């Protein structure tokens, strides 16, 4: 099943609706990385609220997305990890090191806004022309 990717301002939002196969995940990764450039996105949000299982491949793909998007100039945040999933992940040692996380979509958007603000303050961000 293909994951819909929505563009919202400077951000891309990928909302996973159901369990994904490895191929779906790879496809999501490629589509996101391609679109970061096409839409000149500054942030990527991957919403995993609907996932009640997360295997090592899924976790690795999410981490890859974050690192690749950063190389293309966009910050990634994973939102909506369920408590049970989080607990299972740390027990398996899949901790998404170096990847930002947030409670839900709203928090994710706030986080990205905050990050953008910080970049402008530091003088490293792109200037928003409206």
């Amino acid at each position: 099943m293909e994951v819909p990717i929505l563009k919202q301002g400077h951000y891309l939002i990928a909302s996973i609706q159901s369990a994904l196969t490895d191929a779906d995940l790879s496809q999501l990764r490629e589509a996101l990385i391609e679109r970061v450039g096409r839409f000149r996105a500054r942030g990527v949000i991957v919403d995993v609220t609907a996932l009640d299982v997360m295997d090592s491949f899924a976790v690795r793909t999410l981490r890859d997305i974050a690192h690749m998007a950063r190389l293309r100039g966009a910050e990634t945040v994973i939102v909506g990890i369920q408590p049970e999933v989080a607990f299972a992940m740390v027990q398996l040692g899949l901790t998404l090191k170096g990847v930002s996380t947030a409670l839900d979509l709203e928090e994710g958007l706030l986080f990205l806004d905050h990050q953008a603000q910080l970049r402008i303050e530091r003088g490293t961000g792109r200037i928003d022309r409206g």
Partner: protein
Amino acid sequence: MATKGKDAQSVPPDPQAQSESTAALLRELVAHLRQNRTQLREEWARRITRAQLLTAMTEEEIFAEATSVYDNYVEALETGTFEALQAYARNLSERIIPRGVETHEVVGIVLLLRDVLARSLFAKYHEDFDKLNRILDAYEPAANRIANTVAVGFVQERERIIRQQQEAIRELSTPVLQVRERLLILPIIGVIDPQRARQLTEQLLRAIRTNRAKVVVIDITGVAAMDSNVANHLVQTVEASRLLGATVIVTGLSPEIAQTLVTIGVDLSEMATVGDLQGGIEEAERLLGYKVLPLEELTPKA
């Protein structure tokens, strides 16, 4: 007389006749104990005080309890049924355990009563050695059973209370408290075993979700000792919370725990630690963008 007694011992008598005679002897015994109730009871209470048992109770209380125990004791001897005594022992235990009465005291007083009664039997029958023997044959097994019943009842009651308290502790052990919008506190007190650590993490993660928490302060001032297992559980809790988008600050690591953790080489570099709970809350407020000021600084000066 003596030869007759020997015969009675060497040749096993007809069981029915024997039980009848035991019953008759017990009746005689009970009558004796009833007759000398006041005097024996007082003697017993005196010996309890002298042996410094039941120090948690006043002399009047001891005497009142001694009276009921004595009457129940005699009744159990008479009827040969222990249900009433059992119920009384349980009831007594329920009343005296909260006052700090120990097992050795309860066993001690029952054994004292046994001794007091046996002595009174010696005094009464010392001239008739054979009769004394038969009386003791009837008395000892019953008395032993009574002592057993009371002691077991006491211990059972204690164990019941301990079980109850353990359950209560387990339920109370992990309160997750919200102290400010989006700020949770998890004070951990006592020993953390794997089961509790798991319960703790699950509870915290659920609370983070329902309260939409952004910062969690885990205070471990009340944790006496920590080994690598517990430390790893803590690291897992911190990481799982981060996956839900919450930052965890650990506070109250004692000098001993800090030394242990460094010595056994647990990697806590991913963990934000602050000295005490106050510092932890201040740090959390800073992360959330709060600033706490005294009122004077807020009201404009006249």
